[in-house]
Protein backbone atom coordinates (compact mmCIF):
# COMPACT_ATOMS: atom_id res chain seq x y z
CA UNK A 1 0.00 0.00 0.00
CA UNK A 2 1.58 3.25 -1.03
CA UNK A 3 1.88 6.28 1.21
CA UNK A 4 -0.84 8.89 1.49
CA UNK A 5 0.47 12.05 -0.16
CA UNK A 6 -2.45 14.36 0.33
CA UNK A 7 -5.04 14.15 3.07
CA UNK A 8 -7.94 16.60 3.02
CA UNK A 9 -10.11 16.39 6.13
CA UNK A 10 -13.38 18.29 6.48
CA UNK A 11 -11.97 21.17 4.48
CA UNK A 12 -14.12 24.24 4.17
CA UNK A 13 -13.19 27.22 2.02
CA UNK A 14 -15.14 30.45 2.03
CA UNK A 15 -14.92 33.64 0.04
CA UNK A 16 -15.82 36.75 1.90
CA UNK A 17 -17.50 39.12 -0.53
CA UNK A 18 -19.44 42.33 0.04
CA UNK A 19 -22.60 40.32 -0.63
CA UNK A 20 -21.77 37.82 2.10
CA UNK A 21 -19.89 34.62 2.75
CA UNK A 22 -19.75 32.19 -0.16
CA UNK A 23 -19.06 28.67 1.01
CA UNK A 24 -17.26 27.55 -2.11
CA UNK A 25 -16.02 24.32 -0.58
CA UNK A 26 -18.12 22.88 2.18
CA UNK A 27 -16.75 20.08 4.33
CA UNK A 28 -14.92 17.86 1.91
CA UNK A 29 -12.56 14.99 2.71
CA UNK A 30 -10.51 12.76 0.44
CA UNK A 31 -7.10 11.19 0.22
CA UNK A 32 -4.59 10.86 -2.57
CA UNK A 33 -1.95 8.16 -2.54
CA UNK A 34 1.49 8.50 -4.06
CA UNK A 35 1.50 7.78 -7.77
CA UNK A 36 -2.29 7.93 -8.09
CA UNK A 37 -4.31 10.08 -10.40
CA UNK A 38 -7.41 11.58 -8.89
CA UNK A 39 -10.10 13.21 -10.99
CA UNK A 40 -12.28 15.96 -9.60
CA UNK A 41 -15.41 16.27 -11.69
CA UNK A 42 -18.19 18.78 -11.51
CA UNK A 43 -19.78 21.64 -13.38
CA UNK A 44 -18.63 25.25 -13.30
CA UNK A 45 -18.83 26.74 -9.83
CA UNK A 46 -18.92 23.40 -8.05
CA UNK A 47 -15.76 24.24 -6.15
CA UNK A 48 -13.33 21.95 -7.91
CA UNK A 49 -10.77 24.62 -8.76
CA UNK A 50 -11.08 26.18 -5.32
CA UNK A 51 -10.33 22.78 -3.79
CA UNK A 52 -7.20 22.54 -5.89
CA UNK A 53 -6.04 26.07 -5.17
CA UNK A 54 -6.45 25.52 -1.44
CA UNK A 55 -3.88 22.71 -1.66
CA UNK A 56 -1.31 25.26 -2.85
CA UNK A 57 -2.48 28.14 -0.72
CA UNK A 58 -3.28 29.89 -3.97
CA UNK A 59 -6.78 31.12 -3.17
CA UNK A 60 -7.67 34.49 -4.65
CA UNK A 61 -8.12 37.48 -2.35
CA UNK A 62 -11.06 37.11 -0.04
CA UNK A 63 -10.79 33.32 -0.04
CA UNK A 64 -9.77 31.45 3.09
CA UNK A 65 -9.64 27.91 4.41
CA UNK A 66 -12.05 28.30 7.33
CA UNK A 67 -12.07 24.75 8.61
CA UNK A 68 -10.54 21.32 8.40
CA UNK A 69 -6.98 20.28 7.69
CA UNK A 70 -4.94 19.89 4.53
CA UNK A 71 -1.92 17.65 4.97
CA UNK A 72 0.42 17.36 2.05
CA UNK A 73 3.71 15.49 2.09
CA UNK A 74 4.29 16.18 5.76
CA UNK A 75 3.15 19.82 5.65
CA UNK A 76 0.02 21.17 7.26
CA UNK A 77 -0.79 23.49 4.37
CA UNK A 78 -3.61 25.42 6.00
CA UNK A 79 -1.39 26.51 8.88
CA UNK A 80 1.61 27.60 6.81
CA UNK A 81 2.66 31.18 6.26
CA UNK A 82 2.91 32.68 2.79
CA UNK A 83 6.70 32.45 3.05
CA UNK A 84 6.64 28.75 3.90
CA UNK A 85 4.13 28.10 1.13
CA UNK A 86 6.45 29.69 -1.41
CA UNK A 87 9.01 26.96 -0.79
CA UNK A 88 6.42 24.33 -1.68
CA UNK A 89 4.76 26.00 -4.64
CA UNK A 90 6.38 25.10 -7.91
CA UNK A 91 8.69 22.77 -6.01
CA UNK A 92 6.72 20.01 -4.30
CA UNK A 93 3.39 20.83 -5.86
CA UNK A 94 2.80 22.51 -9.21
CA UNK A 95 -0.23 23.50 -11.17
CA UNK A 96 -1.14 23.92 -14.80
CA UNK A 97 -4.03 26.12 -15.69
CA UNK A 98 -6.91 26.03 -18.07
CA UNK A 99 -5.92 28.69 -20.55
CA UNK A 100 -2.37 28.38 -21.86
CA UNK A 101 -2.89 31.49 -24.01
CA UNK A 102 -2.89 33.76 -20.98
CA UNK A 103 -0.98 31.76 -18.40
CA UNK A 104 2.48 32.78 -19.62
CA UNK A 105 3.82 36.27 -19.19
CA UNK A 106 3.84 37.83 -22.69
CA UNK A 107 6.94 39.95 -22.16
CA UNK A 108 9.44 37.28 -21.16
CA UNK A 109 10.96 34.45 -23.18
CA UNK A 110 9.98 30.84 -22.62
CA UNK A 111 13.49 30.09 -21.35
CA UNK A 112 13.33 32.90 -18.84
CA UNK A 113 10.01 31.68 -17.48
CA UNK A 114 11.18 28.09 -17.09
CA UNK A 115 14.52 29.05 -15.56
CA UNK A 116 12.85 31.31 -13.06
CA UNK A 117 11.22 28.47 -11.18
CA UNK A 118 14.40 26.35 -11.29
CA UNK A 119 16.54 29.15 -9.91
CA UNK A 120 13.94 29.87 -7.25
CA UNK A 121 13.96 26.37 -5.81
CA UNK A 122 17.44 25.00 -6.56
CA UNK A 123 21.04 26.20 -6.31
CA UNK A 124 21.49 25.97 -10.06
CA UNK A 125 23.17 28.84 -11.89
CA UNK A 126 21.44 30.54 -14.76
CA UNK A 127 23.45 28.50 -17.27
CA UNK A 128 22.61 25.20 -15.58
CA UNK A 129 18.99 26.23 -15.35
CA UNK A 130 18.95 26.94 -19.09
CA UNK A 131 20.34 23.49 -19.79
CA UNK A 132 17.67 21.99 -17.59
CA UNK A 133 15.01 24.09 -19.34
CA UNK A 134 16.15 22.75 -22.69
CA UNK A 135 15.96 19.22 -21.31
CA UNK A 136 12.45 19.88 -20.01
CA UNK A 137 11.27 21.22 -23.34
CA UNK A 138 12.36 18.07 -25.13
CA UNK A 139 10.78 16.03 -22.34
CA UNK A 140 7.40 17.64 -23.00
CA UNK A 141 7.80 16.99 -26.71
CA UNK A 142 8.70 20.39 -28.06
CA UNK A 143 10.94 20.28 -31.11
CA UNK A 144 13.97 22.56 -31.48
CA UNK A 145 14.06 23.30 -27.75
CA UNK A 146 17.13 25.50 -28.02
CA UNK A 147 15.33 27.84 -30.40
CA UNK A 148 12.11 27.82 -28.36
CA UNK A 149 13.90 28.95 -25.25
CA UNK A 150 14.55 32.29 -26.91
CA UNK A 151 11.00 32.69 -28.21
CA UNK A 152 8.14 34.58 -26.64
CA UNK A 153 4.78 33.01 -25.75
CA UNK A 154 2.97 34.74 -28.63
CA UNK A 155 5.21 32.93 -31.10
CA UNK A 156 3.92 29.53 -29.92
CA UNK A 157 0.60 27.77 -30.51
CA UNK A 158 -1.84 26.97 -27.71
CA UNK A 159 -0.80 23.33 -27.48
CA UNK A 160 2.86 24.30 -27.38
CA UNK A 161 2.19 26.84 -24.65
CA UNK A 162 0.43 24.22 -22.57
CA UNK A 163 3.49 22.00 -23.03
CA UNK A 164 5.63 24.88 -21.82
CA UNK A 165 3.34 25.24 -18.79
CA UNK A 166 3.80 21.54 -18.11
CA UNK A 167 7.57 21.96 -18.44
CA UNK A 168 7.44 24.78 -15.88
CA UNK A 169 5.31 22.64 -13.58
CA UNK A 170 7.67 19.70 -13.83
CA UNK A 171 10.87 21.72 -13.55
CA UNK A 172 11.47 20.80 -9.91
CA UNK A 173 10.01 17.28 -10.15
CA UNK A 174 7.01 17.88 -7.92
CA UNK A 175 5.33 15.18 -5.86
CA UNK A 176 1.95 16.40 -6.98
CA UNK A 177 0.78 18.01 -10.18
CA UNK A 178 -2.55 19.76 -10.18
CA UNK A 179 -4.06 20.09 -13.62
CA UNK A 180 -6.91 22.59 -13.62
CA UNK A 181 -8.85 21.76 -16.77
CA UNK A 182 -5.62 21.51 -18.75
CA UNK A 183 -7.26 20.62 -22.03
CA UNK A 184 -10.47 22.66 -21.97
CA UNK A 185 -9.05 25.50 -24.04
CA UNK A 186 -7.34 23.25 -26.58
CA UNK A 187 -8.77 21.61 -29.68
CA UNK A 188 -9.52 17.91 -29.56
CA UNK A 189 -6.42 16.48 -31.26
CA UNK A 190 -4.16 18.60 -29.07
CA UNK A 191 -6.20 17.54 -26.02
CA UNK A 192 -5.39 13.91 -26.65
CA UNK A 193 -1.69 14.69 -27.11
CA UNK A 194 -1.50 16.65 -23.88
CA UNK A 195 -3.26 13.91 -21.90
CA UNK A 196 -0.98 11.27 -23.35
CA UNK A 197 2.01 13.42 -22.45
CA UNK A 198 0.81 13.78 -18.87
CA UNK A 199 0.25 10.05 -18.54
CA UNK A 200 3.74 9.46 -19.90
CA UNK A 201 5.42 11.93 -17.61
CA UNK A 202 3.58 10.62 -14.59
CA UNK A 203 5.30 7.28 -15.10
CA UNK A 204 8.69 8.87 -15.77
CA UNK A 205 8.70 11.23 -12.81
CA UNK A 206 6.56 9.18 -10.48
CA UNK A 207 4.27 11.98 -9.37
CA UNK A 208 0.64 12.04 -8.38
CA UNK A 209 -1.86 14.06 -10.37
CA UNK A 210 -5.08 15.76 -9.48
CA UNK A 211 -7.06 16.20 -12.65
CA UNK A 212 -9.76 18.80 -12.47
CA UNK A 213 -12.17 18.62 -15.34
CA UNK A 214 -15.76 18.56 -16.43
CA UNK A 215 -14.88 16.16 -19.20
CA UNK A 216 -15.70 12.62 -18.10
CA UNK A 217 -13.78 11.23 -21.05
CA UNK A 218 -10.58 12.76 -19.70
CA UNK A 219 -11.25 11.23 -16.31
CA UNK A 220 -11.89 7.78 -17.72
CA UNK A 221 -8.64 7.74 -19.63
CA UNK A 222 -6.41 8.97 -16.84
CA UNK A 223 -7.70 8.54 -13.32
CA UNK A 224 -7.87 5.79 -10.74
CA UNK A 225 -10.17 7.61 -8.33
CA UNK A 226 -12.87 10.13 -8.97
CA UNK A 227 -14.38 12.81 -6.77
CA UNK A 228 -17.71 14.13 -8.01
CA UNK A 229 -18.44 17.58 -6.66
CA UNK A 230 -21.63 19.54 -6.63
CA UNK A 231 -22.13 22.98 -5.04
CA UNK A 232 -19.02 22.75 -2.88
CA UNK A 233 -19.68 19.23 -1.64
CA UNK A 234 -18.42 15.81 -2.62
CA UNK A 235 -21.54 13.94 -3.67
CA UNK A 236 -19.79 10.77 -4.69
CA UNK A 237 -16.34 9.26 -4.43
CA UNK A 238 -15.12 6.05 -5.97
CA UNK A 239 -12.87 4.27 -8.42
CA UNK A 240 -13.31 4.88 -12.15
CA UNK A 241 -15.19 1.60 -12.45
CA UNK A 242 -17.46 2.46 -9.52
CA UNK A 243 -18.36 5.82 -10.95
CA UNK A 244 -18.85 4.75 -14.55
CA UNK A 245 -20.49 1.35 -14.04
CA UNK A 246 -22.13 1.67 -10.66
CA UNK A 247 -22.96 5.33 -10.07
CA UNK A 248 -24.97 5.91 -6.91
CA UNK A 249 -25.73 9.60 -6.73
CA UNK A 250 -28.45 11.02 -8.95
CA UNK A 251 -26.08 13.78 -10.04
CA UNK A 252 -23.40 11.33 -11.16
CA UNK A 253 -26.04 9.39 -13.05
CA UNK A 254 -27.21 12.58 -14.67
CA UNK A 255 -23.69 13.47 -15.70
CA UNK A 256 -23.20 10.08 -17.31
CA UNK A 257 -26.52 10.34 -19.15
CA UNK A 258 -25.42 13.65 -20.64
CA UNK A 259 -22.43 12.25 -22.52
CA UNK A 260 -22.78 10.43 -25.82
CA UNK A 261 -21.82 6.75 -26.05
CA UNK A 262 -20.37 4.96 -29.04
CA UNK A 263 -22.86 2.09 -28.86
CA UNK A 264 -25.90 4.34 -28.64
CA UNK A 265 -28.44 4.00 -31.38
CA UNK A 266 -28.46 6.75 -33.96
CA UNK A 267 -30.68 9.74 -33.21
CA UNK A 268 -30.83 8.85 -29.53
CA UNK A 269 -31.11 12.07 -27.65
CA UNK A 270 -28.72 13.03 -24.87
CA UNK A 271 -30.38 13.76 -21.58
CA UNK A 272 -29.27 17.01 -20.02
CA UNK A 273 -29.60 17.72 -16.32
CA UNK A 274 -32.49 20.18 -16.04
CA UNK A 275 -32.20 23.41 -14.12
CA UNK A 276 -29.11 25.34 -13.10
CA UNK A 277 -26.67 25.15 -10.18
CA UNK A 278 -27.62 26.59 -6.82
CA UNK A 279 -26.88 30.13 -5.72
CA UNK A 280 -23.81 29.72 -3.55
CA UNK A 281 -24.65 32.82 -1.53
CA UNK A 282 -27.88 31.21 -0.31
CA UNK A 283 -27.36 27.47 -0.45
CA UNK A 284 -30.38 25.30 0.34
CA UNK A 285 -30.64 23.60 3.72
CA UNK A 286 -30.85 20.10 2.31
CA UNK A 287 -29.05 18.35 -0.50
CA UNK A 288 -27.88 21.04 -2.96
CA UNK A 289 -28.85 18.86 -5.89
CA UNK A 290 -32.40 18.28 -4.63
CA UNK A 291 -34.05 21.09 -6.69
CA UNK A 292 -32.79 19.46 -9.90
CA UNK A 293 -33.13 15.85 -8.81
CA UNK A 294 -35.76 13.65 -10.49
CA UNK A 295 -36.05 11.42 -7.43
CA UNK A 296 -36.24 14.22 -4.91
CA UNK A 297 -37.97 13.35 -1.64
CA UNK A 298 -39.25 15.61 1.13
CA UNK A 299 -36.28 15.00 3.37
CA UNK A 300 -33.85 15.94 0.57
CA UNK A 301 -34.99 19.55 0.78
CA UNK A 302 -34.64 19.71 4.57
CA UNK A 303 -31.43 17.92 5.47
CA UNK A 304 -28.10 17.08 3.92
CA UNK A 305 -27.65 13.29 3.80
CA UNK A 306 -24.68 11.52 5.41
CA UNK A 307 -22.29 9.50 3.29
CA UNK A 308 -23.30 5.93 2.60
CA UNK A 309 -20.47 3.48 1.93
CA UNK A 310 -21.20 1.26 -1.00
CA UNK A 311 -17.83 -0.42 -0.68
CA UNK A 312 -14.54 0.37 1.07
CA UNK A 313 -13.58 2.87 -1.55
CA UNK A 314 -16.88 4.06 -2.84
CA UNK A 315 -19.26 6.31 -1.01
CA UNK A 316 -21.99 8.77 -1.85
CA UNK A 317 -24.23 11.26 -0.09
CA UNK A 318 -27.83 10.65 -1.09
CA UNK A 319 -31.01 10.03 0.87
CA UNK A 320 -32.03 7.34 -1.56
CA UNK A 321 -29.05 5.28 -0.46
CA UNK A 322 -29.83 5.91 3.20
CA UNK A 323 -33.40 4.82 2.56
CA UNK A 324 -32.25 1.68 0.83
CA UNK A 325 -29.90 0.88 3.68
CA UNK A 326 -32.68 1.48 6.17
CA UNK A 327 -34.96 -0.87 4.29
CA UNK A 328 -32.20 -3.43 4.37
CA UNK A 329 -31.37 -3.28 0.68
CA UNK A 330 -27.85 -3.36 -0.61
CA UNK A 331 -26.54 -0.35 -2.53
CA UNK A 332 -24.40 -2.61 -4.65
CA UNK A 333 -27.18 -3.89 -6.88
CA UNK A 334 -28.81 -0.94 -8.40
Amino acid at each position, binding site marked *: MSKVLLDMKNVRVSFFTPAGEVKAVNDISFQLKEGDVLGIVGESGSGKSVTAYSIMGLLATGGRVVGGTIDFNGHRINEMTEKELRKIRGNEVSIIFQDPMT*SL*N*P*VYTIGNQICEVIIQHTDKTRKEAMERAEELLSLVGINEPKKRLKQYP*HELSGGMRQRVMIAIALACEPKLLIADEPTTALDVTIQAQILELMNDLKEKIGMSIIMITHDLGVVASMCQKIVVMYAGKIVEYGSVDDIFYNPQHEYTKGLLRSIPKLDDKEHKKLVPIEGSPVDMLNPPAGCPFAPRCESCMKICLREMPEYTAISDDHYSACWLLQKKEFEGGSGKNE
Partner: protein
Amino acid sequence: MAQYLVKRVLLAIVTIWLVATLTFSLMHLVPGGPFLAEKSPSAATLQALEEKYGLDKPVIVQYKNYIVNLIQGDMGESIKQRGRTVSDLIFTGFKVSARVGGIAILVAVSIGIPLGCIAALNRGKWLDNVIVLISTCGVAVPGFVVGTVLMIIFSVKLNLLPTYGLSSWKHYIMPVMSLAFYPTAYISRLMRSSMLEVMGQDYMRTARSKGLPQWKMLFKHALRNAVLPVITYLGPLLAYTLTGSFVVEKIFTIPGLGNAFISSITGRDYTMIMGTTIFLASLVILMNLIVDIAYKVIDPRIKLK
Protein backbone atom coordinates in the same frame (compact mmCIF):
# COMPACT_ATOMS: atom_id res chain seq x y z
CA MET B 1 13.56 48.29 -38.44
CA ALA B 2 15.52 50.54 -40.85
CA GLN B 3 12.63 50.42 -43.27
CA TYR B 4 10.27 51.36 -40.47
CA LEU B 5 12.41 54.34 -39.50
CA VAL B 6 12.59 55.61 -43.08
CA LYS B 7 8.82 55.35 -43.32
CA ARG B 8 8.35 57.24 -40.08
CA VAL B 9 10.78 60.00 -41.13
CA LEU B 10 8.98 60.45 -44.46
CA LEU B 11 5.67 60.58 -42.64
CA ALA B 12 7.13 63.13 -40.23
CA ILE B 13 8.19 65.40 -43.11
CA VAL B 14 4.67 65.34 -44.55
CA THR B 15 3.18 66.06 -41.12
CA ILE B 16 5.52 68.99 -40.52
CA TRP B 17 4.73 70.40 -43.95
CA LEU B 18 1.00 70.20 -43.17
CA VAL B 19 1.53 71.86 -39.80
CA ALA B 20 3.59 74.62 -41.43
CA THR B 21 1.00 75.24 -44.12
CA LEU B 22 -1.89 75.30 -41.70
CA THR B 23 -0.10 77.62 -39.28
CA PHE B 24 0.93 79.90 -42.12
CA SER B 25 -2.65 80.22 -43.40
CA LEU B 26 -4.14 80.76 -39.96
CA MET B 27 -1.50 83.31 -39.10
CA HIS B 28 -2.33 85.38 -42.16
CA LEU B 29 -6.06 85.02 -41.70
CA VAL B 30 -5.85 86.65 -38.27
CA PRO B 31 -6.18 90.43 -38.57
CA GLY B 32 -3.29 92.68 -37.58
CA GLY B 33 0.37 92.52 -38.31
CA PRO B 34 3.74 92.74 -36.59
CA PHE B 35 4.07 96.50 -37.00
CA LEU B 36 0.71 97.61 -35.72
CA ALA B 37 0.92 99.28 -32.37
CA GLU B 38 -0.95 101.97 -30.50
CA LYS B 39 1.22 104.53 -32.20
CA SER B 40 1.28 103.32 -35.77
CA PRO B 41 4.36 104.19 -37.73
CA SER B 42 3.96 106.38 -40.77
CA ALA B 43 2.84 104.85 -44.02
CA ALA B 44 6.30 105.24 -45.52
CA THR B 45 8.02 103.52 -42.58
CA LEU B 46 5.47 100.75 -42.64
CA GLN B 47 6.05 100.13 -46.30
CA ALA B 48 9.79 100.08 -45.81
CA LEU B 49 9.49 97.57 -42.96
CA GLU B 50 7.13 95.32 -44.91
CA GLU B 51 9.46 95.41 -47.86
CA LYS B 52 12.39 94.45 -45.63
CA TYR B 53 10.64 91.35 -44.33
CA GLY B 54 9.01 90.54 -47.62
CA LEU B 55 5.50 91.13 -46.24
CA ASP B 56 4.53 93.33 -49.18
CA LYS B 57 4.49 90.39 -51.54
CA PRO B 58 1.33 88.30 -52.11
CA VAL B 59 0.75 85.68 -49.36
CA ILE B 60 1.31 82.80 -51.76
CA VAL B 61 4.75 84.14 -52.67
CA GLN B 62 5.57 84.65 -48.99
CA TYR B 63 4.54 81.05 -48.37
CA LYS B 64 6.72 79.77 -51.19
CA ASN B 65 9.71 81.77 -49.92
CA TYR B 66 9.19 80.55 -46.38
CA ILE B 67 9.00 76.87 -47.35
CA VAL B 68 12.05 77.16 -49.60
CA ASN B 69 14.03 78.70 -46.74
CA LEU B 70 12.69 76.15 -44.27
CA ILE B 71 13.90 73.27 -46.43
CA GLN B 72 17.34 74.83 -46.30
CA GLY B 73 17.07 74.92 -42.52
CA ASP B 74 16.62 78.69 -42.37
CA MET B 75 13.72 79.83 -40.22
CA GLY B 76 14.55 83.48 -40.72
CA GLU B 77 15.00 86.36 -38.34
CA SER B 78 12.61 87.37 -35.63
CA ILE B 79 10.56 90.35 -36.72
CA LYS B 80 10.13 91.68 -33.20
CA GLN B 81 13.54 90.95 -31.70
CA ARG B 82 15.84 92.59 -34.17
CA GLY B 83 19.00 90.87 -35.22
CA ARG B 84 18.27 87.49 -33.65
CA THR B 85 17.49 84.44 -35.72
CA VAL B 86 14.45 82.34 -34.86
CA SER B 87 16.58 79.20 -34.38
CA ASP B 88 18.76 81.05 -31.91
CA LEU B 89 15.74 82.28 -29.92
CA ILE B 90 14.13 78.83 -29.88
CA PHE B 91 17.38 77.22 -28.77
CA THR B 92 17.89 79.71 -25.93
CA GLY B 93 14.29 79.33 -24.71
CA PHE B 94 14.28 75.58 -25.11
CA LYS B 95 17.40 75.15 -22.98
CA VAL B 96 15.66 76.85 -20.06
CA SER B 97 12.25 75.19 -20.53
CA ALA B 98 13.69 71.75 -21.11
CA ARG B 99 15.70 71.89 -17.90
CA VAL B 100 12.69 72.82 -15.76
CA GLY B 101 10.39 70.50 -17.69
CA GLY B 102 12.85 67.60 -17.64
CA ILE B 103 13.19 67.76 -13.88
CA ALA B 104 9.40 67.99 -13.56
CA ILE B 105 8.92 64.84 -15.63
CA LEU B 106 11.56 62.97 -13.65
CA VAL B 107 9.72 63.95 -10.48
CA ALA B 108 6.34 63.00 -11.95
CA VAL B 109 7.53 59.57 -13.10
CA SER B 110 9.48 58.72 -9.97
CA ILE B 111 6.61 59.69 -7.68
CA GLY B 112 3.64 58.79 -9.89
CA ILE B 113 4.63 55.21 -10.72
CA PRO B 114 5.38 54.06 -7.14
CA LEU B 115 2.29 55.87 -5.88
CA GLY B 116 0.08 54.08 -8.40
CA CYS B 117 1.65 50.72 -7.51
CA ILE B 118 1.20 51.30 -3.79
CA ALA B 119 -2.43 52.23 -4.32
CA ALA B 120 -3.06 49.14 -6.43
CA LEU B 121 -1.37 46.82 -3.93
CA ASN B 122 -3.48 48.25 -1.12
CA ARG B 123 -6.69 48.30 -3.09
CA GLY B 124 -9.66 49.38 -1.01
CA LYS B 125 -7.61 50.14 2.08
CA TRP B 126 -7.15 53.63 3.51
CA LEU B 127 -3.77 54.16 1.80
CA ASP B 128 -5.39 53.52 -1.58
CA ASN B 129 -8.22 55.90 -0.76
CA VAL B 130 -5.79 58.64 0.25
CA ILE B 131 -3.76 58.24 -2.94
CA VAL B 132 -6.87 58.19 -5.13
CA LEU B 133 -8.15 61.32 -3.41
CA ILE B 134 -4.88 63.19 -3.88
CA SER B 135 -4.49 62.14 -7.50
CA THR B 136 -8.09 63.09 -8.30
CA CYS B 137 -7.40 66.54 -6.87
CA GLY B 138 -4.16 66.57 -8.83
CA VAL B 139 -5.84 66.13 -12.18
CA ALA B 140 -8.57 68.60 -11.29
CA VAL B 141 -6.45 71.53 -10.11
CA PRO B 142 -4.79 73.50 -12.93
CA GLY B 143 -1.08 74.35 -12.82
CA PHE B 144 -1.52 78.07 -12.34
CA VAL B 145 -3.55 77.49 -9.18
CA VAL B 146 -0.85 75.19 -7.84
CA GLY B 147 1.84 77.74 -8.74
CA THR B 148 0.02 80.62 -7.12
CA VAL B 149 -0.85 78.69 -3.97
CA LEU B 150 2.75 77.50 -3.62
CA MET B 151 3.93 81.07 -4.04
CA ILE B 152 1.61 82.34 -1.33
CA ILE B 153 2.69 79.63 1.09
CA PHE B 154 6.43 79.38 0.50
CA SER B 155 7.30 82.89 -0.61
CA VAL B 156 4.75 85.27 0.87
CA LYS B 157 3.96 83.55 4.20
CA LEU B 158 7.07 81.51 4.98
CA ASN B 159 9.53 83.59 2.97
CA LEU B 160 11.51 80.47 2.05
CA LEU B 161 11.62 80.35 -1.72
CA PRO B 162 12.28 83.00 -4.38
CA THR B 163 9.35 83.91 -6.63
CA TYR B 164 11.07 84.54 -9.95
CA GLY B 165 14.08 83.67 -12.05
CA LEU B 166 16.19 80.54 -12.16
CA SER B 167 19.51 81.46 -10.59
CA SER B 168 19.79 78.73 -7.91
CA TRP B 169 18.34 75.28 -7.16
CA LYS B 170 15.85 76.92 -4.83
CA HIS B 171 14.36 78.73 -7.79
CA TYR B 172 13.52 75.43 -9.44
CA ILE B 173 11.42 74.01 -6.59
CA MET B 174 8.15 75.84 -7.17
CA PRO B 175 8.11 75.80 -10.99
CA VAL B 176 8.98 72.10 -10.99
CA MET B 177 6.26 71.36 -8.45
CA SER B 178 3.64 73.29 -10.40
CA LEU B 179 4.66 71.56 -13.61
CA ALA B 180 4.89 68.08 -12.09
CA PHE B 181 1.65 68.19 -10.10
CA TYR B 182 -0.74 67.23 -12.89
CA PRO B 183 1.43 64.55 -14.55
CA THR B 184 2.26 62.97 -11.19
CA ALA B 185 -1.42 62.63 -10.39
CA TYR B 186 -2.24 61.43 -13.88
CA ILE B 187 0.56 58.86 -13.96
CA SER B 188 -0.38 57.48 -10.56
CA ARG B 189 -3.97 57.03 -11.74
CA LEU B 190 -2.85 55.34 -14.95
CA MET B 191 -0.44 53.15 -13.04
CA ARG B 192 -3.02 52.17 -10.44
CA SER B 193 -5.62 51.04 -12.95
CA SER B 194 -3.21 49.19 -15.20
CA MET B 195 -1.54 47.55 -12.21
CA LEU B 196 -4.92 46.35 -10.97
CA GLU B 197 -5.64 44.95 -14.39
CA VAL B 198 -2.29 43.19 -14.63
CA MET B 199 -2.57 41.72 -11.13
CA GLY B 200 -5.74 39.94 -12.19
CA GLN B 201 -4.06 38.34 -15.20
CA ASP B 202 -3.53 34.60 -15.41
CA TYR B 203 0.24 34.92 -15.71
CA MET B 204 0.39 36.57 -12.30
CA ARG B 205 -1.33 33.49 -10.89
CA THR B 206 1.27 31.39 -12.69
CA ALA B 207 4.04 33.48 -11.14
CA ARG B 208 2.51 32.94 -7.72
CA SER B 209 2.16 29.21 -8.31
CA LYS B 210 5.88 29.08 -9.02
CA GLY B 211 6.59 30.14 -5.47
CA LEU B 212 8.14 33.46 -6.44
CA PRO B 213 8.58 36.08 -3.73
CA GLN B 214 6.28 39.09 -3.72
CA TRP B 215 8.93 41.56 -4.93
CA LYS B 216 9.78 39.41 -7.92
CA MET B 217 6.14 39.09 -8.89
CA LEU B 218 5.75 42.84 -8.65
CA PHE B 219 8.95 44.08 -10.25
CA LYS B 220 9.52 41.36 -12.79
CA HIS B 221 6.08 40.21 -13.82
CA ALA B 222 3.66 43.01 -13.08
CA LEU B 223 5.54 46.26 -13.57
CA ARG B 224 6.80 45.66 -17.09
CA ASN B 225 3.29 44.87 -18.30
CA ALA B 226 1.62 47.60 -16.31
CA VAL B 227 3.92 50.42 -17.34
CA LEU B 228 2.84 50.47 -21.00
CA PRO B 229 -0.02 52.99 -20.65
CA VAL B 230 2.35 55.31 -18.79
CA ILE B 231 4.84 55.09 -21.66
CA THR B 232 2.08 56.07 -24.09
CA TYR B 233 1.24 59.11 -22.02
CA LEU B 234 4.90 60.01 -21.60
CA GLY B 235 5.42 60.71 -25.33
CA PRO B 236 3.22 63.79 -25.74
CA LEU B 237 3.88 64.77 -22.12
CA LEU B 238 7.61 65.00 -22.79
CA ALA B 239 7.07 67.10 -25.90
CA TYR B 240 4.71 69.55 -24.21
CA THR B 241 6.56 69.82 -20.92
CA LEU B 242 10.04 70.18 -22.38
CA THR B 243 8.88 73.05 -24.57
CA GLY B 244 7.66 74.85 -21.53
CA SER B 245 4.38 75.84 -20.03
CA PHE B 246 3.36 79.39 -20.78
CA VAL B 247 1.40 79.68 -17.54
CA VAL B 248 4.10 78.46 -15.21
CA GLU B 249 6.78 80.44 -17.02
CA LYS B 250 4.65 83.57 -16.75
CA ILE B 251 4.00 83.07 -13.01
CA PHE B 252 7.64 82.46 -12.10
CA THR B 253 9.07 84.80 -14.75
CA ILE B 254 11.09 82.09 -16.48
CA PRO B 255 12.56 83.08 -19.85
CA GLY B 256 11.53 79.84 -21.52
CA LEU B 257 10.08 78.75 -24.81
CA GLY B 258 6.47 78.67 -23.62
CA ASN B 259 6.67 82.35 -22.85
CA ALA B 260 8.37 83.11 -26.17
CA PHE B 261 5.69 81.18 -28.06
CA ILE B 262 2.76 83.09 -26.60
CA SER B 263 4.39 86.50 -26.91
CA SER B 264 5.22 85.75 -30.53
CA ILE B 265 1.53 85.17 -31.20
CA THR B 266 0.30 88.29 -29.43
CA GLY B 267 3.02 90.30 -31.19
CA ARG B 268 2.28 88.73 -34.62
CA ASP B 269 5.96 87.82 -34.84
CA TYR B 270 5.31 85.78 -37.97
CA THR B 271 8.67 84.03 -38.24
CA MET B 272 8.72 83.22 -34.51
CA ILE B 273 5.18 81.77 -34.64
CA MET B 274 6.16 79.54 -37.54
CA GLY B 275 9.43 78.53 -35.92
CA THR B 276 8.03 77.62 -32.52
CA THR B 277 5.05 75.75 -33.98
CA ILE B 278 7.23 73.69 -36.28
CA PHE B 279 9.66 73.01 -33.44
CA LEU B 280 6.87 71.79 -31.15
CA ALA B 281 5.37 69.65 -33.91
CA SER B 282 8.73 68.04 -34.65
CA LEU B 283 9.30 67.36 -30.98
CA VAL B 284 5.88 65.68 -30.62
CA ILE B 285 6.60 63.53 -33.66
CA LEU B 286 10.06 62.61 -32.38
CA MET B 287 8.77 61.71 -28.90
CA ASN B 288 6.01 59.56 -30.37
CA LEU B 289 8.59 57.72 -32.42
CA ILE B 290 10.71 57.14 -29.32
CA VAL B 291 7.63 55.92 -27.44
CA ASP B 292 6.77 53.47 -30.22
CA ILE B 293 10.30 52.08 -30.15
CA ALA B 294 10.24 51.88 -26.34
CA TYR B 295 6.97 49.95 -26.65
CA LYS B 296 8.62 47.42 -28.90
CA VAL B 297 11.49 47.02 -26.43
CA ILE B 298 9.14 46.48 -23.47
CA ASP B 299 6.52 44.32 -25.15
CA PRO B 300 7.84 41.86 -27.75
CA ARG B 301 4.35 41.24 -29.08
CA ILE B 302 4.26 44.68 -30.65
CA LYS B 303 5.27 44.75 -34.29
CA LEU B 304 6.60 47.96 -35.79
CA LYS B 305 5.18 48.25 -39.27
